[in-house]
């Protein structure tokens, strides 16, 4: 089973392939739009993109069933990155994970394609596939769903 990741630059993509990923996508290879606020999320799912990255932030969750339905209809993968959790500090980290869990629950209800990635900017921020699978279970997915999120979700 091949594992896939999204990273921010070619350097991390090369290191990631040595860590067990079949391919590490960079922003040049996939059409990625960063979510967050309600307008950002809505605008992203209405455009022709491949991936909606981080629809949840540490502020109020602005990812609702309407956005999830549009993402499902347009075959857009909803992607949650580990890097956003590592970058948050203090109580914001807890709020962010809580919002991510709620967003995952909405995506599961509407059967959206969910992926879990590292979105690393430096090689030290990369994580091995098993660690990303464990992070996925923290967001509320089962082990099998989490494995899918790291492998088949981004497989073209």
């Amino acid at each position: 089973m091949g594992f896939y990741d999204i990273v921010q630059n070619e350097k991390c993509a090369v290191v990631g392939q040595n860590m067990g990923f079949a391919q590490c996508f960079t922003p040049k290879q996939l059409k990625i739009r960063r979510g967050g606020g309600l307008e950002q999320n809505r605008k992203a799912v209405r455009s022709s993109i491949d991936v909606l990255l981080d629809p949840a932030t540490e502020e109020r969750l602005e990812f609702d069933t309407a956005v999830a339905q549009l993402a499902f209809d347009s075959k857009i993968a909803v992607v949650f990155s580990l890097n956003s959790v590592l970058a948050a500090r203090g109580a914001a980290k807890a709020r962010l994970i809580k919002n991510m869990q709620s967003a995952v629950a909405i995506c599961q209800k509407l059967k959206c394609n969910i992926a879990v990635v590292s979105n690393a900017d430096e090689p030290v921020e990369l994580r091995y596939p098993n660690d990303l699978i464990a992070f996925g279970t923290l967001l509320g997915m089962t082990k099998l769903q989490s494995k899918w999120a790291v492998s088949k979700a981004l497989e073209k």
Partner: protein
Amino acid sequence: MKPYPPTMREKRRYIVLKAEAESLTVKFTKEEIERALKTAAFEWLGILGVVETGFWVISADEREQEAVVRCNHESIDRVQAVMCLIDRVNNKKARFHTLNVTGTIKKANSS
């Protein structure tokens, strides 16, 4: 005192972790590795969470930059997730990678 019957005993699992720094030349001491793991566990799981998961740092190896932590069989995923969320050891950028999950310390030390 009588020992617990086998059905009531906590089913322990030992997770072998490897510390990887930003640069290959940076090596952490045994105390730094242990402190990073314990701090992360208490920060992410809390005191009650550590109690529920049965988390404990068994040993750390400076030469191999590896550590063995213990938890119960129901909380392997949670503990692994916490370990992957560690991004610093002694204020230097680093990550922990799970090498193996075993049922005995002997297997953990030999892997």
